[in-house]
């Protein structure tokens, strides 16, 4: 479903991704781990189409279509979703309005009616243990780290993607929130592919990865199964570099 071939990416002439290749099929969970600054967020942002990054060579295809032919919003409408490491705040735009507009933008003709939408929204919010007072607040404005992450997952559930890119969605969450977020992820993975960027084994206790990739210096240097994450947790990254 997603195929990345030898991807090189630069920002302001500095190369950040230096030849990344990756394939994600429907139903697969791929964890990407690596130190800060190794290029994990860059990878997720480039897949989604952030304008700051320049693809200098290589190719990304989603369901067979080269992504360079698709605008960001078209990628979203085609079923891609990015849960941001640092979601932007949009002052003055209420969460409720934003969610409704986003659902109708992404799901188009298949968007739920107003009534169905409210029902869906309520059930997801209940599952994520979010109070309905969230809906009247402005998008991410003054949100705590944990609140932002819950809102990202709520959006993921509502937008129902076929490819979910989750960038450190577990960071800053307490144990209960982590469980709730993991349940959210598990609820979509049977029908979606998932790229899970994380530093911690604890999320992977709840969301079982099919593959674990280690990124160092803009390259995937090692790929293994779930046990690789356990080893990384115990031993760090030095042994890979050595």
């Amino acid at each position, binding site marked *: 479903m997603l195929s990345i071939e030898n991807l090189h990416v630069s920002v302001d002439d500095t190369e950040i991704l230096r030849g990344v290749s990756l394939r994600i099929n429907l139903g697969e969970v791929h964890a990407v781990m690596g130190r800060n600054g190794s290029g994990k967020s860059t990878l997720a*942002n480039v897949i*989604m*189409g*952030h*304008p*700051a990054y320049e693809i200098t060579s290589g190719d990304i295809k989603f369901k067979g279509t080269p992504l360079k032919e698709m*605008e*960001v*919003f078209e*990628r*979203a*409408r085609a079923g891609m*979703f*990015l849960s*941001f490491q640092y*979601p*932007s*705040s*949009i*002052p*003055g*735009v209420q969460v409720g309005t*934003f969610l409704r*507009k*986003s659902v109708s*933008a*992404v799901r188009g003709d298949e968007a739920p009616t107003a009534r169905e939408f409210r029902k869906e929204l309520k059930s997801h919010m209940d599952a994520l243990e979010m109070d309905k007072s969230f809906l009247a607040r*402005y998008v991410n404005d003054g949100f705590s780290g944990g609140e932002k992450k819950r809102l990202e997952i709520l*959006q993921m559930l509502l*937008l129902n993607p076929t490819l979910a890119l989750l960038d450190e969605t577990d960071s800053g969450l307490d144990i209960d929130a982590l469980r709730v977020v993991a349940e959210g992820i598990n609820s979509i993975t049977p029908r979606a592919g998932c790229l899970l960027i994380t530093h911690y084994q604890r999320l992977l206790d709840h969301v079982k990865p099919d593959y674990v990739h280690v990124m160092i210096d803009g390259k995937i240097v090692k790929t293994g199964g779930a046990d690789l994450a356990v080893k990384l947790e115990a031993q760090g990254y030095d042994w890979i570099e050595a």
Partner: protein
Amino acid sequence: MSGDIARDAVGDYRYGFHDPENATIRFDKGLSEQVVRDISELKNEPEWMTEIRVKAYHRFMEMPMPSWGNCDMLNQIDFDAVTYFLRSSEGTEKDWDDVPDDIKNTFDRLGIPEAEQKWLGGVTAQYESEAVYHSIREDLEEQGVLFFDMDSGLKEHPDIVKKYFCSVVPASDNKFSALNTAVWSGGSFIYVPKGVHVEMPVQAYFRINAKNMGQFERTLIIADEGSSIHYVEGCTAPTYSTESLHSAVVELIAMEGAKIRYSTVQNWSANVYNLVTKRGIAHSNATIEWVDGNIGSKLTMKYPAVILKGEGAHAEVISVAYAGKGQHQDAGAKVHHLAPNTTSNILSKSISKNGGRSSYRGMLQVTPKAKGCRSKVICDALMLDADSQSDTYPTMEVGNSSADLEHEASVSKVSNDQLFYLMSRGHSEEEAMGMIVNGFFEPFTRELPMEYAVELNRLLELEMEGAIG
């Protein structure tokens, strides 16, 4: 996607249509004492009003153009090319069916009769120089609320008008208030009796149709002790290649404990000079609120003012300005704290796009005897591209040290990250920009009646789009 958010095209101005001009009386272009006298005579005004007009005319001729604001644009105004009076209908009707068809069609297209049925307590619709339609709900009339177009107000209640006319904004206040006082026509006259609360807003709609038209409405609102009213005004004009001039004067008087809210959504086409003087006097424990939105026009210079004359009076000025290509919005607020324990809040938000310019010009005065005052001023500017301009000219005159004053100002840009975030949720770049802009104006829009808020949001979304078919 390009990270460059600048767009060349401005959204279509959807109110730019015009009707054939079927004037019943149209004055020759240009201004003279005779023109002023003719207007007064035509309206059968009392002698004292004619005298006020003539005196104001001479003040207008003597006074120089303001030396601030946008002098280049101001000096382009050709006062000799303006039509100062144009009557397009024989009378002011109480029934839309009696309004001439083409004029009625215009107001239908603007949605006025529909809004009136749904949520308004009264409506006055002005077309060129005079009101063509006017009505007030019976229950308000029964409670003694007076709501007239200004010409009828003068006829029916000359003593009230005489007492308050020019009492808040003297003719010689500035060149344009002098001009308005000389040639005024139309506008609203409202008196709310003691203790009466007008629950539904009353609305005035101003439409310019003719080319090179000058519209000079004059509004006077008096809220007697303990009463309240919400007045809403909207305005549009056709798009012509030559300029029109809109120069209104609005005077508000809020007696002890009264409350007046005056909301404006100004959406003139981009060939209209909008040079308006708005000022209110708030007596003890009274509140005056200006909710002022400036979206259209070529040049707007408007600084709604409140004189806090009585102890405990309160002023609220919430304004937004949108300056697109070729537009300059020079707007702001003035609050004069003349009495102890008076309070004021000023919130000003502006957006500049496609080389547009928005300026905040504010004046906050606290006199020596106004002890224990509180005031908070917030100015936020949002720039949508690098060609646009935003500036602030705040002035403070503080005459005693007991005042508690706060001032915050910010200038921000729409970040690529915000746009990317919204676009990753399926919104096109224009839609994303529209959401950000609407969000930025939200503290203003939430103060408007819902119908106006929806319309304003839609308008701004259109502005963010390229060309609309």
